[in-house]
């Protein structure tokens, strides 16, 4: 996100800095480096191109060996921007590292960006959009699934997070089960994460989630076994249920020695137990490190071999395969499934969320997808702050678990281009802001923690921000009623159907991404169509008014009055003021007609290398046409523009700042 430099607090400015081109080390561009309290800003002298990097997104700062030109510093971000700055003075270089170390390593939540005054977001979100932080109520989502019903009920047992501090305060459990059983089951499960409902399919089969049982080698818990029976009984269509342990068996065995482990099939009646080997957070973290290196060495001709070695797509495949297993059990075999891993907040979140998305088309809409993330990830306690390294603490807790989920969704988008309401950009921006700490939404590790931090009161919500830029996120190819959109998605998980997510991992390498982006042009096209449709309504209205005027003049007035009354109704239906209706003849002037006539440009620009402000467009930049002059604008210029309501209806149409000023809109 780019701001105005004047509005940002600049701490220091470093001159004579060169930025090395990532695809060709021979190319270097000169510029100035500004350090503000929240950003590192590089402004290229010639092109005026600006690079803004949030400190919170910085992943590593690496001083490379001194070169003739100066001290090179490589900055890698969590959203895969790599910048190699060459700073001519060694002293400046030290200042840079010092400032970055001071500002990019917060140790307390309240030092995070989202708790700071943010005039930019204030302007953007306070004025036009209601703060709908409370977009998500767990109850309303379960109500959507038809709950509570005679099988499932809501319990307030955890209203003060007393039985499980990483669960939401509202839980859905089988209606037949007593609190005592729930309490004991929680005691028998790692961190009190007892089996609770995640998703109920229309056929009655349920998806429930929990953590591993504290069974050790022989331990058992009568109540926990009973709870599973109650869950099994909620579904009349199946005599058994699956318990899926998403870990590799060897990991689960190792946990036994620590008094944890997995369900013993002989103790639990009518369950089928399955291990599905998704690797743990440490394996995933290492795999991503390799992947980033592999994507970075862009001249590397053995890229595919390197990609194979990272095993990243193998892990992605494992997650999708597991979710497909859940889908087949629930949808095809009408059988309920209980899912867990170790603590039930990483692999369990991945697979439950993805299975829900495959099962229920609702989760593939923009709103539904937010609800899904709120439910399976935020409320069920995926440790976002730990996994994303929001604070400068234990590195070993960091792991790209949620990113993998986003990538799985991206793989699905690729296979089913018409089945999702949101586009790839949505996932890429979501990925960025999970790390950016600019919004409170993903701060903290569970609902309780977010409540304690007063996230809702003190920070802006990412969902509101996304809502303000919704034009950027709509998939123009979404067909809500098509076969694939309407049914259970069955992804192809054969390895050749899984792709390297170039636009994420090479997001900022414009030399690697396609020069013309298909989906952008299609978005532009459909936005153009809807703007022109509004425009044609306006023209129709003006035509009708003129016809009326001419007719009134020509004919005998007595005859006309009756006629015109009817027509007036039709024409002026959208006008609110009743009085205006009568004096409408006077209202219409030549100027007005010409203003309307010129209110839209018929030939919108389709491709441009730069915004009118000289900001170059790259593959990930968001763009929007001004409907009036047809220019394509960058995100910042769009923020400076305005949505005006079309005079034909109340639909909002975007107009750039230039046109706003020029035509006093």
């Amino acid at each position, binding site marked *: 996100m780019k701001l105005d430099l004047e509005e940002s607090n600049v701490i220091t400015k470093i001159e004579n800095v060169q930025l090395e081109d990532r695809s060709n080390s021979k190319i270097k561009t000169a510029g100035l480096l500004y350090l503000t309290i929240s950003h590192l800003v590089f402004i290229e002298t010639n092109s005026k191109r600006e690079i803004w990097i949030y400190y919170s997104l910085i992943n590593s700062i690496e001083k490379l060996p001194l070169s003739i030109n100066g001290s090179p510093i490589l900055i890698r971000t969590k959203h895969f921007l790599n910048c190699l700055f060459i700073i001519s003075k060694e002293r400046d270089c030290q200042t840079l590292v010092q400032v970055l170390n001071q500002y990019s390593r917060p140790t307390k939540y309240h030092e995070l960006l989202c708790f700071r005054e943010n005039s930019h977001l204030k302007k953007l979100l306070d004025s036009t959009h209601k703060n709908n932080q409370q977009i998500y109520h767990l109850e309303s989502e379960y109500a959507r699934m038809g709950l509570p019903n005679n099988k499932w009920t809501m319990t307030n047992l955890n209203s003060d997070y007393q039985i499980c501090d990483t669960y939401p305060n509202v839980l859905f459990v089988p209606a037949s089960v007593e609190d005592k059983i729930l309490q004991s089951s929680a005691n028998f499960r790692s961190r009190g994460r007892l089996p609770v409902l995640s998703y109920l399919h229309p056929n009655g089969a349920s998806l429930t989630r929990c953590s591993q049982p504290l069974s050790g080698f022989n331990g058992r818990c009568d109540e926990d076994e009973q709870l599973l029976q109650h869950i099994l009984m909620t579904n009349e269509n199946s005599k058994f249920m699956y318990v899926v342990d998403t870990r590799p068996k060897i990991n689960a065995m190792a946990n036994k020695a620590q008094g944890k482990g997995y369900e013993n099939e002989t103790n639990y009646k009518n369950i089928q137990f399955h291990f599905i080997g998704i690797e743990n957070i440490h394996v995933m973290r290492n795999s991503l490190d390799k992947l980033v290196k592999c994507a970075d060495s862009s001249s590397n001709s053995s890229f595919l071999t390197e990609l194979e070695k990272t095993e990243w797509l193998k892990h992605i495949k494992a997650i999708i395969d597991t979710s497909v297993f859940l889908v087949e059990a629930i949808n095809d075999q009408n059988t309920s499934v209980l899912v867990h891993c170790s603590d039930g907040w990483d692999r369990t979140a991945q697979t439950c969320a993805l299975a829900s998305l495959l099962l229920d088309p609702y989760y593939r809409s923009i709103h539904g997808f937010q609800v899904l993330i709120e439910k399976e990830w935020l409320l069920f306690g995926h440790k976002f702050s730990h996994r994303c390294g929001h604070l400068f603490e234990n590195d070993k807790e960091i792991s790209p678990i949620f990113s993998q989920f986003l990538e799985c969704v991206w793989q699905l988008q690729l296979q089913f281009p018409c089945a999702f309401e949101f586009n790839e950009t949505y996932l890429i921006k979501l990925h960025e802001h999970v790390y950016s700490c600019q919004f409170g939404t993903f701060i903290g590790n569970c609902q309780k923690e977010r409540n304690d931090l007063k996230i809702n009161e003190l920070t802006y919500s990412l969902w509101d921000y996304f809502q303000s830029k919704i034009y950027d996120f709509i998939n123009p190819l979404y067909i809500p009623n098509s076969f694939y959109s309407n049914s259970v998605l069955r992804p192809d998980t054969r390895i*050749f159907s899984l792709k390297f997510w170039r636009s994420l991992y090479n997001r900022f390498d414009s030399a690697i991404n396609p020069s013309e982006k298909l989906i952008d042009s299609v978005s532009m096209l459909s936005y153009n*169509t809807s703007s022109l449709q509004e425009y044609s309504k306006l023209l129709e209205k003006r035509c009708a008014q003129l016809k009326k005027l001419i007719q009134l003049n020509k004919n005998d007035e007595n005859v006309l009055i009756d006629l015109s009354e009817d027509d007036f109704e039709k024409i002026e239906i959208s006008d609110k003021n009743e009085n205006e209706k009568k004096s409408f003849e006077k209202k219409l002037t030549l100027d007005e007609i010409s203003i309307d006539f010129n209110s839209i440009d018929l030939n919108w620009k389709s491709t441009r290398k730069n915004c009118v402000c000289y900001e170059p467009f790259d593959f990930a930049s968001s763009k929007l046409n001004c409907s009036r002059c047809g220019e394509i604008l960058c995100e910042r210029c769009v923020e400076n523009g305005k949505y005006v309501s079309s005079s034909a209806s109340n639909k909002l149409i975007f107009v750039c700042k230039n046109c706003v000023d020029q035509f006093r809109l």
Partner: protein
Amino acid sequence: MDFMDLIEMPRVDNVKVYRQIQNYELNQLVTQKLFGSLNLTSHHLIFITQTDLQKPREEIWIVHSSIDSLEKNVTEAKFQLMIKCKNFQIYFVDFPTAYCCNSIHKSLESLSNLTTENMKLPFFCQTISKINQEDWNFYSIEKSYKRFFPNEDSSEWRISEINNDFKISPSYPKKVIVPKNIDDQALIKSSQFRSMGRFPILSYYHKKTNSFILRSGQPLLGSSNKRCKEDELILKCALPKGKQGYVYDLRDASILKTAVSKGGGYETEVNYPLWKRINKHMDRFDQLHISYSKLIDACINSSTQFFYKLDTSAWFYNIRQALYLSFLIADEIHNKNGCFLIHGWDGLDNTLLISSLAQILLDPESRTLDGFIDLIEKEWLHAGHPFSKRYFKSAFGTTPQKQEGPVFVLFLDCVRQLCEQFCLSFEFNEDFLIMLFDNLYTSEYGTFLGNNQNEREQLLVSSRTVSLWTYVKNEENIKKFINPLYKINDDVIWPSIFTQSLSLWSNLFLRFQINSKPNDEAKKEIVKLVETNLQVKIKVEKLRNELLELQKEAIDAGVLNSENY
């Protein structure tokens, strides 16, 4: 020889055919088992399922020449034939007896390996379209000349008819463009000095910078170090003042000695002082065939180490190399002062690949449907790319002569990569490229018959067969091949050549494995959106005119004026 001599058993009953088909609902491959009779005709293997009350009768038609390889698996209990087709489809056929299996196998081996051009399908085929001479004459060298040199008088180039009887160079077309100052005698001398008589001719002229691409066969220096003054003169005359000439030799420098010892060679700096020689390696067509086989093998047996297998197939290496070299040429031609002579060994394969790709980058015209067809005619068909030899077998098969090599397939894949990177700049779509691939190996149309224009004339291809372009230009068909988002782009396009930027051509190489329906749905939606946009634009235009007229009428009637307010 008559076809019937090759067919012992025209019909076998009680045959089982297995093939994999897509279950669209479950989005997965399922094996379909069909029961029925197998029939052999002169050009087809036709399998007809037994009539069954529940299922409608199904027919599978396989053209003999579309069969790439046959594998017989006869045991005591099983008499099976595996049929691998050139388009990557695979069938398993179970016969009731070993005798039928052997007999059909023998017939198919002969029928699918007919080398006589005259016996090929286009000569026997009743296509829906009629022979249209216009389509056969769609391309002409005069057309190219006019495009390159709108003003003939000021041009430094001329059309020579020296090869009118295909004597000087059997693989060249009748007419070629050469420097104006060079007379036909010099061309004859040069042709004797160049491999296959392929003296340097103009391939592309870039009007914007007056730079150009020539191509030829390698010079025949031999160990006696021959030289040819006329050949040197051609290159000297061609190069205008202020331009730098580059000889792009598509062979690695390390093998030049071998080339010389075999009678070939390269342009020495002493004899061609204005031209700088650059050696760039491209895999030769026979190596490319191996690469292609490995690629298809990786796609079919993809369960383990898929990416590693893709990498070792070297297919992507070849795509990168081809795009990279054409990129360098385009850069020199458009941004600097370079002019090029491209050749490899005979100038029949990689030379054509690189020169045609460079043109696609440089010339917006070649990115239109008609322009692309022209390019294929000019740079491949008229340039003498040996289609009949190179595409006799596909990824599963080989012949002892080893003349196969999917250079044109590589070309199509490179073009598709460009289409993907520049989704607005090409008038034709991926389906067009796939259609070309299909007709390359087996076709009802005569376009890709023979190895050069000479052979095509001898076969009377244009009077006996229908041109593929007749099929393409049919009103119904052409719709399928147009990119709805196409917008003319007058610039040179600069592709990205990192491995991450390239993709596997799934819709071709994995065509029988992946479900293309969700993507077809998206394509249709794009067409729909473009149409809606067009409709609303027409409507707006109409309303604007109406409004202007009404406004005028109102002003005339005195009911509307600007001071009204």
